């Protein structure tokens, strides 16, 4: 019996060795090089309607970025560049936005883009979009003015962020009603086919007005199991996979290149201010002092990732304040002292609800529990599935603490900060601070960009002083690509731009 066991163990060891040797060799050809196509692995199906105004999942937007465009679109530096419009101007009072339509832009179905289509798109978006902030911004439109080559938007009141909302309004053909299943846009790629839980295929738009895509076809392969996705990548079946964890990059043995970017979100321990003891600012501050963010980054992502300190991530360079990340240096004695002042000399215990489908959050929560022990705080993890998290924690606000990441769905600062206004529907932590409300409202009311930036920075400082949440980091984002596949660029938002990729033969 012992012999068999030894044999079994020896076999496993041997496999381990074989694998170690494998690391030296890398595959240098991909099936896609022949027909100029690539296969990209994604961790979730595009399970919603493909209608640009009804898309909700970040994973869906990430793919559809290649198909739909607005009058302007974001580039890799976060600036808005012209897309369906060839030029635009803003009146000096900030009330009139005039867009010159680019000539010769055609939809994927062959129809020419007209000013009528643009107006139809804005009106449909304003009435049907599931993004509440977008609907709100468009409701401030007084009138649309259309000529053959021009499209103007007249606002009721100035809004320095307005261009970021324009960017979100995808231009779609008028009176085309199959966007749910057969999306038609103007982007560098067009939709070809999809198969439930299997794949999603897009092909190059040869009539694209701008720089045409290099690749002729991109197949997204859906592999919902993380290990399966990784194994497929490591075996060379996939040419590109984004959003890998540090462990996965360490496990990669096939010679793929790994690029490092950021996820562009704010990961934090979000605390419910309506439950004791988190209603007490001293307790929240104590938590901030008790958490060692640097050590957490080291343990969970090998030191990658960026500490944030408030509700803004570094890609928003204009507003991001680096110094806030150091507002609460790791200091257990201070934490204990604050707890004692708040009436918890022996610490307290609480439960942190963690969405189980997202490993980086689970990892950070695990480290958190360990770090809080030193301050006498007993935290317990409760894993919940995503739907339970959405309805119970996010919507129902039935939690003490949770860990998640928030990004800006509208590509502007207010997308990060609106939610913390008293009584906001998305204010899941029930945060309420009169100073914050005043600063935020002032920021929204001004038409002056510099002044607005100042107010937003003030908002961020208040969130930090108030220890509204235990701010952790902007997560690191690793992308692995075939060594011959070049051109990948990180965007300051959650998208993968396929038009820049090419095979370097």
């Amino acid at each position, binding site marked *: 019996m012992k012999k068999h066991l030894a044999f079994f163990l020896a076999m*496993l060891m041997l496999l*381990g060795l074989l694998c170690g040797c494998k690391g030296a060799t890398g595959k240098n050809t991909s099936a896609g090089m022949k027909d100029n196509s690539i296969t990209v692995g994604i961790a979730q199906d595009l399970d919603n309607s493909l209608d640009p105004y009804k898309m909700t999942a970040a994973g869906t937007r990430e793919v559809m970025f290649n198909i739909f465009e607005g009058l302007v679109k974001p580039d890799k530096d976060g600036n808005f560049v012209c897309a369906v419009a060839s030029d635009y101007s803003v009146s000096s009072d900030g009330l009139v936005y005039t867009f010159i339509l680019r000539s010769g832009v055609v939809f994927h179905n062959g129809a020419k883009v007209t000013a009528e289509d643009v107006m139809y798109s804005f009106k449909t978006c304003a009435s049907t979009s599931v993004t509440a902030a977008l609907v709100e911004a468009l409701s401030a439109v007084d009138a649309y003015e259309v000529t053959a080559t021009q499209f103007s938007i007249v606002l009721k009141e100035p809004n320095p962020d307005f261009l970021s909302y324009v960017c979100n309004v995808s231009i779609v053909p008028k009176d085309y009603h199959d966007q749910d299943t057969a999306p038609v846009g103007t982007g560098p790629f067009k939709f070809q086919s999809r198969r439930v839980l299997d794949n999603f295929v897009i092909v190059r738009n040869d009539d694209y007005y701008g720089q045409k895509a290099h690749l002729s076809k991109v197949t997204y392969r859906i592999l919902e199991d993380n290990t399966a996705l990784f194994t497929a990548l490591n075996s060379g079946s996939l040419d590109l996979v984004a959003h890998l*964890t540090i*462990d*996965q990059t*360490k496990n990669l043995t096939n010679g793929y290149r790994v690029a490092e970017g950021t996820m562009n979100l704010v990961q934090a321990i979000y605390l419910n201010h309506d439950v004791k003891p988190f209603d007490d600012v001293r307790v929240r501050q104590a938590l901030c002092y008790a958490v060692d963010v640097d050590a957490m980054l080291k343990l969970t992502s090998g030191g990658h990732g960026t500490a944030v300190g408030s509700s803004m991530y570094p890609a928003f360079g204009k507003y991001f304040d680096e110094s806030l990340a150091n507002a609460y240096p790791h200091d257990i004695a201070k934490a204990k002292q604050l707890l004692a002042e708040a009436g918890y000399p022996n610490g307290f215990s609480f439960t942190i609800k963690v969405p*189980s489908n997202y490993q980086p959050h689970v990892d950070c929560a695990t480290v958190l529990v*360990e770090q809080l022990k030193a301050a006498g705080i007993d935290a317990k993890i409760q894993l919940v*599935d995503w739907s339970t998290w959405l309805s119970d924690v996010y919507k129902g606000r039935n939690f003490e603490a949770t860990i998640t990441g928030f990004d800006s769905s509208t590509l502007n600062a207010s997308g990060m900060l609106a939610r913390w206004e008293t009584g906001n529907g998305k204010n899941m932590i029930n945060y309420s601070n009169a100073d914050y409300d005043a600063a935020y409202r002032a920021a929204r009311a001004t038409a002056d960009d510099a002044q607005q930036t100042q107010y937003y920075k003030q908002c961020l400082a208040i969130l930090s002083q108030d220890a509204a949440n235990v701010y952790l980091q902007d997560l690191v984002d690793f992308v692995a690509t075939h060594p011959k596949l070049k051109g990948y660029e990180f965007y300051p938002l959650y998208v993968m731009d396929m038009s820049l990729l090419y095979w370097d033969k």
Partner: protein
Amino acid sequence: MKKYNGFLLCGGILTAAMLLFILLGCFWTPYDTTAMDPNAMEQSPSWQHLMGTDKFGRDILSRVMEGAASSLFIALCVVAIGCFFGLIIGALCGYYGGIADAILTRVCDSITAFPSFLLALVIISVAGPGTYNIIFALGILFIPSFARIVRTEYVTCRDLNYIQSARLMGAGDLRIMVAHILPNTLTVLLSALTIGFNNAILSEASMSFLGLGVQPPTPSLGYMLNESRSSINSTPWYMLFVGATIVLLVLGFSLLGEGLQRQAQED
């Protein structure tokens, strides 16, 4: 008689060794099972860390010791629940037949077909996560397979001659079921028990994987096995040690079962 001792002996020694290992883990582990060390992440086995360390720098040996204890506890309870109720339901259904049999068989079929993930979600939504709730959820799922096997044996046996004669001699139903038919089912039941124990350990693994079992950072073999799966290239020993612990644990019990079974056949 003599030739069967091999199974009993090996199984006994292996089981005793594993139990000792687990018992030791209940009182003492080389390191704190949740203590992290940023300077000792993903180390290969050494004299400091006999099984190496995981991605947080935690000592794998310590976690295996504690994790095996909780996994063993869950698996034993689940099998006990499944076997106990399965035996009762199977015996009653098989012996009496009729409407009750029809209904209970339907219920068992329903449970087999019902997605375990959904059932666990329901129980955890109602009662919250926790070791006892997961035992309850898995226990229910384990009843049908036992019930079905026992029922088949009772259906086969109830009309046999010696049972008929026992009945004629005035033995009550209960006596026949317990004293006459039950011994006949022992062989099959023993196999089913070892398979059940095996499945229970593995089910705990899947449940923990879906976030419905033992909550991190508390170690459990299932959770660790899943964790090790993703670092198969960089830390193969992690998977190896956790996997080996599960195999040895189950193997010990099953050899013991096999030995007992042969002993019973011999007698």
